[in-house]
């Protein structure tokens, strides 16, 4: 209630009252009336002050602040290391029918540091959230610092809308949005390795909306620069697009699920294959043209009575299909060799993770790829590694983890890898530790 208004009203009432009683000679009665009004004003003032204290008006509602490090951002550092053992020579690794790029190569044999990460995040103000992730890794004795994420996200648009801008992992796949250290296996699924060079991120803008439906229904779109693998080249404006939709919910109290569909499009790109350490005088295959990828994913989780503490099961499936149309050139070749390219590549993986005790998890994964690439000059396709020679790349993996707390994990993993024609046995012993702020429990 507006106290000034009340005060004025009461004062007016008092004057009117006095006016009505003007004939009365009894001054005492008038004084008494005035006292009475004074008291009523005081009591109203008290009530108003109390109620504005209680509702807080427009002031903040928190009595005790629980922000991490007061106003510093939440900081976490990921320590990751692996001991790898291969039957085959890891440098011979290839996937026939798929020219590799990005970070598709195998981890070095023996002991090596994986992706050490530093993550800063916090609410920027009441309208924005920000996150910054640096990954530090060593390739061929050279320390490489990579900016993996640097994005803002809106908090207060309302209506289920969010806008994210900057550098971020694309929402085109389920695993793509999960940081490497939170994956359930040491290495990326073959389809991620073959099509995205492990993981796809770029700079741009994402708009997404959660619809006001009973089931979870999200649709979103990303406009990206198109300069990052598997796109590439000098792009003006928007070089690649992503549209995606996710749907999900619960079945009873013990089961949860999510399914997603995505579409990635990039026109007039110049995709360079080769990845790390292959630059220099060697011939580098380059694809120039239009590329489309369709993705599907499905996740199912179960925990007894929905209590994830002791036991739970997670099933995960993803499928991607990519179509490339354009030209393939071997850069640095003399004379310059090139061919047309009409390429169809697809692949899927399915995995099951079973947490059977508070600190123990185990999992199985199966990967499979398929390709059909055509061009005017088969020799060029062959040099680029785009001929499959009838081989179907596949891989089976098994892992076991000891997870003493939310911040530590020791993992043993074995792969029977048939990426190329010679079967490989791969063994990884990996540690992943997190120091600093508490991680997020994403679905």
């Amino acid at each position: 209630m507006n106290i000034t208004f009340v005060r004025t009203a009461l004062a007016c009432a008092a004057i009117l009252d006095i006016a009505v009683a003007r004939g009365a000679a009894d001054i005492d009665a008038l004084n008494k009336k005035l006292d009475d009004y004074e008291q009523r004003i005081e009591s109203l003032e008290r009530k108003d002050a109390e109620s504005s204290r209680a509702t807080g008006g427009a002031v903040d509602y928190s009595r005790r602040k629980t922000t991490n490090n007061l106003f510093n951002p939440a900081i976490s550092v990921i320590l990751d290391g692996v001991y790898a053992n291969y039957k085959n020579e890891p440098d011979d690794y290839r996937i026939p029918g798929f020219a590799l790029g990005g970070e598709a190569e195998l981890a070095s044999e023996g002991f090596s540091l994986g992706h050490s990460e530093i993550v800063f995040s916090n609410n920027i103000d009441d309208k924005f959230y920000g996150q910054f992730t640096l990954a530090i890794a060593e390739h061929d004795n050279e320390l490489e610092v990579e900016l993996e994420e640097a994005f803002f996200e809106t908090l207060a648009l309302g209506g289920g809308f969010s806008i994210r801008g900057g550098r971020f992992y694309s929402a085109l796949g389920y695993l793509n949005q999960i940081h490497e250290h939170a994956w359930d296996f040491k290495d990326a699924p073959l389809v991620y390795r073959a099509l995205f060079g492990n993981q796809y991120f770029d700079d741009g803008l994402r708009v997404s909306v959660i619809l006001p439906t009973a089931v979870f229904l999200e649709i979103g779109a990303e406009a990206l620069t198109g300069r990052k693998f598997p796109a590439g080249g000098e792009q003006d404006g928007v070089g690649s697009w992503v549209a995606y939709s996710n749907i999900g919910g619960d079945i009873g109290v013990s089961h949860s699920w999510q399914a997603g569909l995505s579409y990635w499009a990039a026109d007039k790109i110049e995709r360079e294959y080769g990845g790390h350490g292959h630059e220099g005088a060697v011939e580098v295959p380059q694809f120039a043209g239009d590329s489309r990828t369709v993705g599907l994913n499905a996740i199912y989780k179960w925990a007894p009575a929905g209590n994830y503490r002791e036991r739970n099961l997670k099933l995960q499936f993803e499928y991607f299909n990519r179509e490339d149309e354009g030209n393939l050139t071997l850069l640095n070749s003399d004379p310059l060799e090139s061919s047309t390219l009409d390429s169809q590549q697809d692949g899927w993986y399915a995995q099951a993770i079973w947490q059977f005790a508070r600190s123990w998890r185990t999992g199985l994964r199966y990967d499979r790829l398929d390709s059909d690439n055509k061009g005017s000059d088969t020799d060029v396709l062959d040099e680029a590694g785009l001929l499959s020679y009838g081989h179907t790349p596949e891989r089976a993996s098994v892992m076991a983890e000891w997870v003493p707390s939310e911040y530590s994990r020791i993992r043993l993993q074995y792969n029977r890898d048939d990426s190329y024609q010679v079967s490989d046995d791969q063994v990884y012993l990996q540690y992943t530790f997190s120091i600093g702020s508490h991680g997020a429990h994403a679905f």
Partner: protein
Amino acid sequence: MRMLFRPGLFVGLVTLLCTYSGTTWAALSVFACEPEWAALVEELGGDRLEIYSATTAQQDPHQIQARPSLIAKARKADLLVCTGAELEIGWLPLLLRKAGNARIQVGQAGHFLAAEYTDMLEVPDKLDRSLGDIHASGNPHVHTDPRNILRVADPLTQRLKAVDPDHADDYQQRYQAFKAKWQDAIDDWSQRAAVVEGKNIVVHHDYWSYFTHWLGLNKVATLEPVVGVSPSTRHLAQVKQLLEKQPAVMIVDTSYMNDRPVMWLSEQTGLPVVTLPATVDYHGGETLLQWFERLVVRMLEPLK
């Protein structure tokens, strides 16, 4: 077909943005992180509210994921009522970011944390993860002291009035009725449970600190060596030794935890196990009053 995609997407988005209007809900939608707050807000708002509890009494509230169904519910909520004190730190911040709902963000009227209105026990002097999964703000399980329920009920009522001022009188009346009923109940429980005062107990996890503090029970040992870490056999043996010097009357366990270490210790020592329901069975229609009655009755059973 390829050419169609870009304009198609653009038109689709624009159409969506233009035709989109937030659905209006007849009832005020409340998202409670834990069943105790769902039950409390129901006492204060009754049928006027559409209440959703994100967890059940069988779930460890710390181990929840920001799963799709929770995002869908949080997106529609007018008021979020959670414990705070970092109990939901693994999933609530993510949920708030994903929900795209301005009303329930930190600092808004629709964001209510119960632990901000109670005094905290076990606030650590030292923050170090070697001490386990400790909470910097103190033990977050504040709802196990019935006096805390009352401490939270008052500011929660004020918050309901702020979010839904049209029905402020109704919330105030319901609060007065609840307060009277609850105060009587506290007096009754305190009187009946007076016999346990000063008794020694062993707990599995420091879940019941506020409850035992209220009843004046004396915790001599905790089975978890540090917070959130399962007891090793060596630690259990140490607890057993300790109990020979300082005899206890019972082992108190929590419904959502693995009962194996508790059963082992019970077999070794002959102590009765009292498994207390972690919170009200809100999904099963239980009220806060019935739940606390159940707690008190179970606590008194082994002492008969």
